[in-house]
C-alpha cells in the first residue's frame, strides 16, 4: 500500500511550486490547516492563488502567507472582515488580486471540478454585480447564472482522523469546505489531529474516502492562534 503519511511538515508540502492554486479549508478558525499553511510559508513560494472562505486573521495562517508576499490572488467569499487587515493593506496597495464568489457558489464550483463536470446553473447572484460577465440562462422560466468549475493544484485541508488509506473524518463545524476541497484538487494534503489503524474507521462514517487524499501529516491537537509546540 502506498504510504500517504508524511513524516515531516516539509515532506508534506514541499512539492507545491510557485504559481500553484491552493484550496485551503476552514471557516472561521475551525478546520483551518494552520500547520500546513505555516509549512507553505516556510517554502517562500511566490504567485500562489489561494481559494478559501476568509482573507486571514491577524498575522497568522493565511494572513501570514499574504503578509510574506506569497499570494498573488485570493478567491473568497468574505474578504473584508476586521481581522483581515493584512489582506486589506496589500489589496489597497495593489499587490494582491481579489475574486469574490458567493459562498455557496464557491463550494459548488469546487464540487463541480471534483465531480468532473463542466459547470452548473445557479439562481445565486442573478442580476447582481457578481454575475457580470457570466452567461445567464433561463430554465423553465427561472433565470440562472452559469458558473464554471474551480479546481486546485493542491488542497490543504484539516481533518480529525485519518487511516493509512487516507480515509478522513472531521469534527463538528471544522468539516466545512474541507471534504469538498479534497475532491477538487489534483493533490490533497491533509493535516490530522491523529492517525488510526486501518479498519479503525467505520466505512459507514467516512466523510472523505482515501481516494481523494494523497498525503497526510499528523499534528496532534492544537489551538489555532496560540503558540504551538514543535509539531
Amino acid at each position, binding site marked *: 500500500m502506498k504510504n500517504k503519511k508524511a513524516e515531516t511538515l516539509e515532506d508534506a508540502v514541499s512539492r507545491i511550486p510557485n504559481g500553484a492554486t491552493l484550496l485551503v479549508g476552514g*471557516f*472561521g*478558525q*475551525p*478546520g483551518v490547516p494552520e500547520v500546513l499553511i505555516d509549512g507553505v510559508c516556510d517554502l517562500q513560494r511566490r504567485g500562489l492563488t489561494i481559494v478559501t472562505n476568509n482573507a486571514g486573521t491577524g498575522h497568522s495562517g493565511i494572513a501570514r502567507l499574504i503578509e510574506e508576499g506569497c499570494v498573488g490572488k485570493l478567491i473568497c*467569499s*468574505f*474578504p*473584508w*472582515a476586521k481581522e483581515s487587515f493584512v489582506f486589506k493593506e496589500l489589496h489597497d496597495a495593489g499587490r494582491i488580486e*481579489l475574486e*469574490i*464568489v*458567493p*459562498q*455557496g*457558489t464557491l*463550494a*459548488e464550483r*469546487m*464540487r463541480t471540478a471534483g465531480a468532473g463536470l463542466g459547470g452548473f446553473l*445557479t*439562481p*445565486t*447572484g*442573478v*442580476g*447582481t*454585480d*457578481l454575475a457580470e460577465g457570466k452567461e445567464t440562462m433561463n430554465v423553465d422560466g427561472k433565470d440562472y447564472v452559469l458558473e464554471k468549475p474551480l479546481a486546485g493544484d493542491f488542497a490543504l485541508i484539516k481533518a480529525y482522523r485519518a487511516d493509512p488509506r487516507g480515509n478522513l473524518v*472531521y*469534527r*463538528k*463545524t*471544522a*468539516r*466545512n*469546505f*474541507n*471534504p*469538498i476541497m479534497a475532491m477538487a484538487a489534483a493533490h490533497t494534503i491533509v493535516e490530522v489531529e491523529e492517525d488510526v489503524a486501518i479498519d479503525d474507521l467505520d466505512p459507514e462514517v467516512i*466523510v472523505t474516502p482515501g481516494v481523494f487524499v494523497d498525503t497526510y501529516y499528523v499534528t496532534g491537537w492544537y*489551538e*489555532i492562534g496560540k503558540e504551538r509546540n514543535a509539531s
Partner: protein
Amino acid sequence: MSDQQTNLLTRQQIAARAAQDMEDGWLVNLGIGMPTMIPAFIPAERDVMFHSENGLIGMGPPPAAGDEDQDLISAGKELVTMVPGGAYVHHTDSFAVARGGRLDCAVLGAFQVAANGDLCNWRLPNQTSGSVGGAMDIAAGSKRVFAMMTHTARDGAAKIVTERTYPLTAGGVVTRIFTDMAVISVTGDGLVLDEVAPGLTADEVQAVTDAPLIMDSVGTIAIAA
C-alpha cells in the same frame, strides 16, 4: 406628533417581534448581527430549528461556561452548541439545504429593501467591493426572506424604497420587513404596513419610508412587559 426617538424599538424588541413569526416546525437561517438575537425569544414549546451555513443543522444557544468547543461555531463565528437531533454536513450539502428550498425562512440584515422585495445587504454603493459570504445563496433559496434592520439609515435616509439604488443581493425575495418602527409585508400589491411600534402612527412611519405603504389595517407591535 409623538417623539419618534423614544418610541423606537430596541434591538431586543425587534428580535422579539420577529421571533413571533417563527413558526412551529420551521428551519431558519439567521444572518449575522441582530437576527442572532431571535432564538432567545422563541417559546420553548415551539419547535424551530436553526441552520448555520457552515455546516450545522440544529444550531443551539451559546455554550455554558466550560462547555465551549472551538470546533463548534456559527456562521457569525460565535461559539454555539448543537441541539439533540441535529446533524453536521459539509459546505456543499449545507448550501444545498439553503438553495434547495429547505429553509422555511432566512432572517437577514439589510441596507435597503425595495417595494418589489429586492434585497440589498452585501455592498454599499460607495464601496468597490463587499463581503458577500452566503447572503446571495441564502436569499435566493429560502422560502421566505425576512429583512431585519433599523427603519432608516443613520443619516435619516429611507432604507425601504420604491426602487433600490444599492447593489443587489437577490431580486424580489424579501417577504417581510421588521424594523425599529414597523412590520411591513411585501405583497404583489405593494408594501403593506401591518404593525407600528407602540406610540407611533402609520403616517409617521410613512414619512420616513420612501415606498408607499398600504395602510388598510394597521396594528400595534405587541411588546412583552
